[in-house]
Structures are given as C-alpha cells and as structure tokens.
C-alpha cells in the first residue's frame, strides 16, 4: 500500500477528479462572481463594465448593512447557543439513564429538511390558529403577538427554529469528542478526589478545545451565510426586518434583476466569511496542545 500511494500518478488518479470538480463548480464561479460584481448586468444581454461602482454602492447601502447586522446577530446567537449544546452533550455523555434515547431525540430535527422545518414552524407561529398563540390564548393572553408580522419580533422568532434545527448536529459533534476522551483520565481524577464540575472544566473542556474551535467556526460562518429557513418563512420581510445577507443577495439578483449588484453582494459575503474565519482562528488559536495521556 505504501508503495502504491507513493506513486504520483496513482495519487493524481485519486485526487484529480474531485479537485477538478471543486475547481469547476466552486472556485471558478467564485472568481466569475467577483468579476460580475464589477459589471452592471441584468442577467440577460450585454454587461457594462463599471469598475468598483457596485462595491462602492454596497458600502453606503443601508439596507445591506441592516441585513449584515441581522446576520451578525444570528451568528452571535448561534455562538452563544453552542454553550447550551455543549452542556447537553456533557450530560448525555455522562452515565445517565435514557441517554441513548435522548440523544436520538436531539438528533431528529437535524434529519428534517429546512423547508419542512420552516413549514412546521410557520404553523406554530400562525397568528390565529398557530400552536403558540392558541397556547397563549388558553392561558389568558388577550392579544398574543403576531410573531412573523411584527418587525421587532420576527428575528427572534426565526432564530429559535434555526437554533433548534442545529442542536442535534452540534450535540453529536461534542458527544463524539467527549466519548474520545479516555475513560482512564476521568477515573484517575476521581481517585484523586476531583468533583464532577472539576472533571468537566479541568479535563473535558481543555481536551475538547480543538473540537470547540471547529464548531465555533462552523456555527458563525454558517450563520453569516444562512438563507433557507428565512427565505421560506418570511422572505426577509416584513419590510426587510428579517433580511440577512444571503437573502439580500438573492433579492438583488433574482427579484430586482440586478445581477451585477447581487454578485457584488455575494462576493462581499464571501469576504466577510473569510475574515470571520480568520479572526476566529486567531482568537481561538492555542500555542500549546494539551495532552494528558
């Protein structure tokens, strides 16, 4: 095996197809998108080269920055919710009764498609016969809120299903990470008289650090480019109150038929995600890898 794998032709044979595919469907379109952003183009017919006009406009476009703010809020929310996921995963990885069943319960939302989740929550939030408002009405709330129609509530109403949707995913990652920590370490700690809290904070957390770093990047970048649930549930409305960067880009390109500006927005979104990844990596970088074993 060692011999075969050192043959460059063989390596190429295995690596090339996927690499080429990646280039053709990801990297080339990215470059093209950046280029389209330099043009004024309605998607049909000729493009007019306008240089950095679109990008300049983007900088002063209040609607874009509003959507960026919403994306940032979502990123913040998802980042914070990671703590909750981590706690649940820790509890599940301990020896509690029914952990197996609970794990499955947490995982199920992840198996549903985003559109199904959106439809489900649309029914929950329905202003008159939705589950939530029926419940509120039955406990005597006279005028229950219009969740998705109220500009000041709509973002929160959208964040909840999004966080719910990804719970299983992150809990699974943390769970796998926790299961990877050798039992012997915990046992040794227990013999030395460490409490459960000490085991969690002094042993499990440090050893899970790499995993946590990865999930932070996943959740923040994932939130910055989030699109599907919001598109189905509110389409960015009412009046832009739940518009995020990705939906703003879609609306510019496919509704207003301003593909140049839409491409510029898409490119900006990519840059923002790259910067975010870089910053997170810097902030969470560890100089020393902790190894107990």
């Amino acid at each position: 095996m060692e011999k075969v794998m050192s043959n460059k032709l063989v390596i190429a044979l295995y690596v090339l197809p996927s690499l080429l595919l990646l280039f053709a469907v990801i990297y080339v379109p990215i470059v093209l998108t950046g280029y389209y952003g330099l043009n004024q183009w309605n998607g049909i017919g000729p493009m007019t080269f306008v240089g950095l006009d679109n990008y300049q406009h983007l900088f002063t476009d209040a609607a874009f920055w509003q959507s960026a703010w919403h994306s940032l809020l979502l990123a913040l929310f998802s980042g914070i919710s990671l703590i909750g996921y981590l706690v649940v995963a820790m509890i599940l990885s301990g020896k509690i009764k029914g952990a197996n069943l609970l794990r499955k319960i947490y995982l199920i939302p992840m198996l549903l498609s985003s559109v199904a989740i959106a439809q489900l929550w649309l029914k929950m939030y329905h202003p008159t016969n939705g589950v939530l408002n029926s419940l509120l009405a039955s406990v005597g709330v006279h005028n229950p809120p219009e969740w998705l129609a109220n500009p000041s509530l709509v973002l929160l109403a959208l964040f909840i299903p999004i966080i719910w949707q990804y719970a299983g995913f992150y809990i699974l990652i943390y769970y796998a990470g926790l299961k990877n920590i050798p039992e012997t370490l915990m046992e040794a700690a227990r013999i030395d008289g460490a409490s459960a809290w000490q085991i969690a904070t002094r042993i499990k957390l440090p050893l899970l650090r790499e995993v946590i770093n990865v999930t932070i990047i996943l959740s923040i970048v994932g939130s910055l480019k989030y699109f599907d649930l919001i598109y189905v549930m509110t389409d960015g409305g009412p009046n832009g109150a739940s518009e995020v960067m990705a939906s703003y880009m879609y609306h510019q390109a496919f509704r207003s038929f301003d593909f140049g500006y839409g491409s510029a927005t898409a490119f900006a979104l990519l840059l923002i995600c790259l910067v975010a990844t870089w910053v997170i990596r810097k902030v969470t970088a560890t100089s020393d890898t902790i190894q107990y074993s």
Partner: protein
Amino acid sequence: MSNKYSVRKRSHRKWVAGLTLLLSFMLVLSGCGVGKDGQGGSSGAGGKVTLKMMHLWPEGSSAQQSKLVTQIIDQYQKDHPNVVIQQEVLENEQYKNKLKVLSASNELPDIGITWAAGFMEPYVKGGLFTPMDDLLQGSKLKDKFVPGTTDAYALDGKTYALPIELNITPIYYNKAIFQKYNLKVPATFDEFKQVVKTLVDHGVAPIALGNKDRWTGSLWYMYLADRIAGSETLKKAIDGSGSFDDPGLIQAASEIQTLVDMNAFNKGFNGLSNDEGKSEFMNDKAAMYLMATWELPNFTTNPEIPQAFKDQIGFFKFPMVAGGKGDENSWVGGPGVGLFVSENSKVKAEAKAFVEYFVEKWGEQSVTQAGVIPATKVDTSKEKLPKLYVDLLNGLNEASNITLFADVQMKPNAAQVHLNMIQALFGKAVTPQQFADQHKAAIEKGN
C-alpha cells in the same frame, strides 16, 4: 520523516502546473460545448420538426391547465404529422429562474411563457423574442383579442408575445356572513368602511389578506389609487410622466393605513403568504377577499371545494370613493401570461403557426375546461358557464379601463421597491408621504 516531507515538497510545483493545465483544458472543452447545441428545436431527417415548449402548468398544481395544453398539443400533432412538440414543465418560480438562465446562455425554447411589460422588457431589449405582429394582423387572430390586452406585450410599436389569460380583480365576499350581520354589498367606500366596522365589532375578520407576498396588498393600494386619483394619474405616476406626489395617490396610501387601524385585515397579515391569507376566507373566517379571477375555479368548478361553500360566494366591484376621480368599471388586472417565440429558434415559422393555433384553441376551451379567462373574446351565450363566470365576463365587457398590476407594470427594481413599500405601508413602518417619496426615487432611477 523529514526526508519524506521534502520529497513531497519538491514535486509540489510540478503538480500545480499540471493541474492548472488540466483545468484550463477542461474549461476550454466545456466552453466549446455551450452554444453549439443551443437552440432547442431542430429539423431532423424526414422533415420532422421538433418544437420545444416550456410552460408552467405542472400536472400536480395546475391539473386542468396541464390537461388542456396536452390536449391542444395532441390535436395539433395529429393534424400536423411532421411536427413533434416537446413540453418542459416547471413551477412558477423555477420557471422564471430557468428562463433567465437559459437566456443568459442563449438557449431559450422555441415557444415559452412570458409575463407582460416590465418582466418582458429585458428579454425584448436583448433581442430574444421575435415580434408577433404578423399573427396579430393575420386572418385567424385579427380582432379576436379583448381590446387593450395585447398592449402590455408591445414595446416600441411591436408586439412580442400573445396573451392567453386575462384577469380582473373583484372583491369576493361570503354571502352567508354578510347575511348573518345584515350587511349589504357596499357601493361606496364609506359604506365599505361601515361593513368593515360591523364585522370587526362582531369579531369577524373583514378581509382575508396574506401580505408576505406583497403583491396582494398592492391590489388594495392600486384600487384605492384608481378610485381616488383616477386611472390616468396612477398610470402616469408609474410610467414616470406623472408623480406619486399627487395628493390623490397620497390619500390612497393613508386610506390603507386607516383600514389597517380599523383592523380590517386578518391578524398577522404581513407574515402570512397569500395561500395562508386565502385559507381564512376559504374557512369562513374572513368575509371578503380581493383577488384576481384566477381564483374563480375555487368558487365554481373545483370539485375539491364543498358545494355549500361555493354557493355562498359572490363578488362586487371595488366601491367608489366619494369625491374621487375613479370609475366603477375600471378594474385592476391585466393579461396574465403570454406566449413568445424565440428569436433564435431555427423553426420560427412552425413555432409561430403553432402559437396561432394554440391561442385560438385556448380561447375556445380555457374557460370551460380550465376555468381560465382567455385574453381572446369569449362568447358567453354559446357555452354553459357557472353564473359567477357569466357575471364577471359581462363585467369585463363593460370595463372602461384595465390598470395593469403595478409590479408587472414597473421595471424590476422599481417593482421591488413598490412591493417592499406596500409591506411597510401596511405595517405602518412608513408614512404615506415617505411611501410616495420612495416610489418617486425608484421610478426616477429607471431600472
């Protein structure tokens, strides 16, 4: 360990060079593929002509339309054995997206569906649709269309598509609910507001509205603008020769907010889709519903809707506003979709002949078979139609004006501003004056 690593490193550069080369090859190759094979139809051996037709009536969601299209195509193929017509069917949104993508690579089908005015303009400017004036003046279709319906498909004096639908928007109402509270069909807007007030007092939602889709709320604004400021003022404001600053148009916007303040629309309307809004009406929970005639099958022929419900639905014209410049017989509406023939089609003549045939047959059968009102004139005496149809078709014959849906009339960007502003207006996030200012700015921008 370190030795192995350096070996890998050295070969690194070669690798990158090789990859780049391969990649560029691939791009060149794929580049060649596109465009050559472009235009759908091709005349093959033996004089067989294949026409590609793309439309948006999937069997699942538009069963009757889909059946009628297939029926017309089958008949045509029988009469013209040398013609094969291939259908490609997509859902509305996907259809629009695909049309866009296909036109970017110049691969439009021979025959397809388009919307009027603002939607069509970029395609026409890009030279993708072929003019249809010869058919319009031809022996089969001359004077067959309802006056004014083809105008929305004309640009710079040429008509680029033939409409096959005509929609006007009445206010449907639930007779049972009206009867229960002793309400009469309102003739004036003041009476209308009285009806709204009575219904609100009795805890019934007066109007079903799903304004997440935004064009639904636009209908209300369009009508109020038409009734208060008159259709000419509205038309001019939209095409840029007038202005949204017109006091009548601003009054229309503030009337919308008055209705919102009266709780005239069902709860949470800005977060509900049109379908969700409609279901309030269909479940007897709301008393009125302003929607185009494409909903008629639901109130007449659709077998899935209980007959008892269908029997209790009537319609009335949008009421007159005291002191307004509008006319009761002026409707908001317009041609729905039309058929275009691709300018780059290799079988243009055959495609046009089929379109001519299609429009004619569609006009004869669409009301009875699919419940769709065609843009061609319908002889109501000839066919046995549900009463609601006859009344509305007669209303159509008396129409003094049809104002095209605003979001169709405006250019794409302005249309989006309009729709967003509608949602903001209904949600009271803007004042009527700001509503007017934003419209003005968007229309001046001209895209």
